[in-house]
């Protein structure tokens, strides 16, 4: 953020500039639309924080099977919880996603970006009073990546070949050069625990601003302020309560009656009704999360690129954003990177709904009969409706899509990544490399489009170790074009995170990293007296 945009942000905080003026001038200064929108939201809330109060969060996504062990954290509730009681080595900047020091003070790569040295912060205490050492860091990272690991972070740690403590510094060696290694350590599973959490993975002891007081999985989790917090610019409320509320109506009722001060996963359809309540404010963030329809490029009939192109032209993206997201999102261009990522390739032509081109490609592919699309409500909110819309817009191009609604139970084991044409969602990752390596590299576990392109793989590996920004940006541009024109991903929309809070909730930061202010909502907000 340069000085000019800082000045604009200051004007907003002082109350002297409205949203339209700010975004116009910020974009003229070079910020992307998304970053400008998010920066406005943050600045408008920036005042002096007041300490005190109890924050109650009513969150969707908890279950009686949740565990405090960060290795097993998958649900939204445990995501927010782990961000409150633990810290990772690196954090991401809320607007630019650039890596920022957290428990690691600084880092430096070797010339080939294969070996990285991290200086670990000293004088940080765990909740039980013990001091955090580099050995704790090494033990934690090893627990999430060794051969016996059961962690949800194992996938992102795959490229690491050794983790060592060399003279108090953390030294990490990779199997190939990676200019973005620090970004990997922002993964929410990788909070540093005493001795890696090997003895007591579910103790919930970390270095974060809040200490775990009680935990009833799928029901309620309470925290109290950590008086020994190594940072003073966070954790303003005295205590936090996370209540699991999986029913959308219950969340809205609880927020409207003031029983909780923040809720997540607000259904776009109910937004107009919710914002009518005088005590409620909407908190939206644009991020990199998106919804997709994925085809297996190595299975007939989707191994024919003309059929894939036909389906890509047969989807009405604007309509999807309007109807499925209620306008809270942006159209996608069939590759998974949007302007919230560093080195985003600008100026790629936006593909739009074109029934003629779709019919042309369909005819050229020589495919006859219907195409079977598998979908379910758990693929993404509104997935079934979206599939029906897709079916209708494809019909106008002469393509017959048959929809099979699969049961939600078992969808992620038996349909996604198994069947050749299905609906799914993706969250965002810290860097383009992380995303492409996890889902588009030909050998990736989560390559749900079976995209096996040698040129793409070569570009990905060279871009990873490339330290020249301009060269890197060009490589990522070429990769995006390959995915867009030859891949199996139909990406109609990027979804905004739609949350809501009471009007007395201040300091909410629109963090593009992930939902709920990248999970840091509890430590960033305070109450207006």
């Amino acid at each position, binding site marked *: 953020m340069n000085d000019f945009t800082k000045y604009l942000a200051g004007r907003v905080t002082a109350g002297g500039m409205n949203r339209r003026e700010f975004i116009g001038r910020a974009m003229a200064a070079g910020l992307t639309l998304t970053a400008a929108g998010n920066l406005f939201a943050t600045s408008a809330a920036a005042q002096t924080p007041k300490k005190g109060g109890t924050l109650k969060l009513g969150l969707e996504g908890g279950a*009686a099977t949740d565990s405090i062990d960060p290795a097993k954290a998958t649900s939204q509730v445990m995501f927010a919880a782990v961000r409150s009681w633990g810290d990772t080595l690196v954090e991401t900047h809320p607007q630019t996603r650039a890596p920022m020091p957290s428990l690691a003070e600084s880092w430096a790569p070797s010339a080939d970006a294969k070996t990285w040295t991290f200086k670990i912060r000293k004088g940080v205490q765990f909740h039980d009073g013990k001091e955090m050492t580099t050995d704790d860091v090494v033990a934690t990272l090893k627990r999430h990546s060794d051969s016996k*690991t059961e962690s949800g972070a194992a996938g992102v740690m795959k490229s690491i070949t050794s983790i060592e403590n060399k003279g108090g510094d953390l030294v990490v060696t990779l199997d190939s050069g990676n200019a973005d290694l620090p970004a990997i350590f922002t993964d929410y599973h990788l909070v540093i625990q005493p001795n890696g959490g090997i003895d007591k993975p579910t103790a919930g002891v970390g270095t974060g601003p809040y200490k775990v007081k009680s935990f*009833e999985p799928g*029901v309620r989790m309470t925290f109290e302020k950590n008086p020994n917090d190594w940072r003073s610019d966070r954790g303003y409320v005295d205590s936090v309560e996370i209540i699991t509320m999986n029913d959308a109506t219950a969340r809205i*009722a609880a927020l409207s009656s003031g029983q909780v001060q923040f809720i997540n996963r607000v259904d776009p359809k109910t937004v107009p009704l919710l914002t009518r309540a005088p005590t409620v404010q909407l908190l939206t963030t644009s991020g990199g999360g998106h919804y997709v329809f994925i085809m297996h490029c190595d299975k007939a009939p989707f191994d024919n690129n003309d059929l894939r192109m036909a389906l890509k032209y047969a989807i009405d993206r604007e309509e999807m954003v309007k109807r499925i997201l209620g306008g809270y999102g942006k159209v996608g261009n069939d590759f998974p990177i949007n302007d919230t990522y560093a080195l985003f390739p600008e100026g790629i032509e936006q593909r739009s709904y074109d029934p003629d081109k779709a019919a042309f490609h369909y005819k050229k592919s020589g495919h006859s009969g219907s195409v079977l699309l598998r979908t379910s409500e758990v693929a993404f909110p509104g997935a079934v409706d979206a599939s029906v819309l897709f079916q209708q817009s494809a019909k106008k191009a002469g393509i017959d899509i048959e929809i099979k609604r699969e049961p939600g139970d078992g969808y992620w084991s038996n349909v996604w990544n198994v069947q050749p044409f299905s609906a799914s969602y993706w969250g965002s990752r810290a860097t383009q490399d992380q995303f492409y390596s996890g889902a588009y590299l030909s050998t990736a576990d989560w390559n749900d489009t079976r995209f096996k392109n040698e040129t793409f793989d070569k570009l990905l590996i060279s871009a990873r170790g490339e330290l020249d920004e301009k060269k890197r940006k060009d490589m990522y541009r070429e990769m995006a074009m390959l995915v867009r024109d030859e891949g199996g991903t139909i990406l109609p929309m990027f979804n905004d995170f739609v949350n809501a809070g009471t009007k007395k909730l201040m300091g909410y930061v629109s963090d593009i990293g992930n939902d709920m202010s990248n999970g840091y909502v509890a430590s960033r907000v305070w109450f207006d007296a």
Partner: protein
Amino acid sequence: MSNSTEAGGTPARSQRERFPLLTLIFERFLLSLVLLFAVSVLIFAGVEALPGDFASTYLGQSATPETIANIRAELGLDRPVVTRYFDWLGGVVQGDFGTSWASRNSVSEQVGKRLGNSLFLAGFAAIIAVPLAICLGMLSVHFRDRMPDKIINVISLAAISLPEFFIGYLLILYFAVNFGIATFPATVYEGMGFLERIQTIALPTATLVLVVLAHMMRMTRAAILSVMSSAYMETAELKGLSSWRAIVKHAAPNALAPIINVVALNLAYLVVGVVVVEVVFVYPGMGQYMVDAVTVRDMPVVQACGLIFAAVYILLNMLADILAIVANPRLRHPR
């Protein structure tokens, strides 16, 4: 069964005839054990038949083949089905329900808490609903075919026709959001005082009462009405007994058997079948707990919940049968 006669006295009777109640309880108890065993086999087979196992479902999208294999190895999920079942059974007969695969906590501890919550809510709803239903039933017999009877019938039919989540949402909207006099959400947690708990569960209790009231009330009314046409009721009326006294003291006791059965059925529903109410009011009961466990195929938890639900039904049915015998003097003192 001995049929030998003794000179000059009543014939000796078998154990079954002399202690009908005790024999019944004993036989039922044995049958229950067999039933519970069968239930455990069915649940185990059912969960196994579902696609995926705990290892592949727990980490969801974040799973890699290595983590899935590691989890399987740690929990012994790669062993054959029969081995795993008998392993679990062996633990259960010694009183050890195992540890939850998801949270690594003791199952009995976790289930105990949630069961306690469910029983608390069901108990309160029952204490209010059962006497109310029987009284309203007797009232509607007393005023049969007149205004009060018609009103009671219409309101109770409406309550039972509306889905329980709809009733729940209506109550939340009016009493919690608009008037602000009721507590929402109804989440109870450890350390809450007794009075605070009662206040918190006011809305879900009201919902459950409305849901089960109609069934019990209408059965009470029907059972008593069918008795009203018998000869002795006509005698009572001719003898000048007040209508109310005749109903309560003479008709109702004879109509008890079907009423008891309906009450037992509804009590079992209150414990076992209220997942929807739990979700709407965010109440931490057994229903939601079991659903969450089935979703990730957490077998020890699913088995424990299944057995408890089956035991609740069996126990309530047994109680209903016993009470039906106790309420009938002819069965109580057989000659």
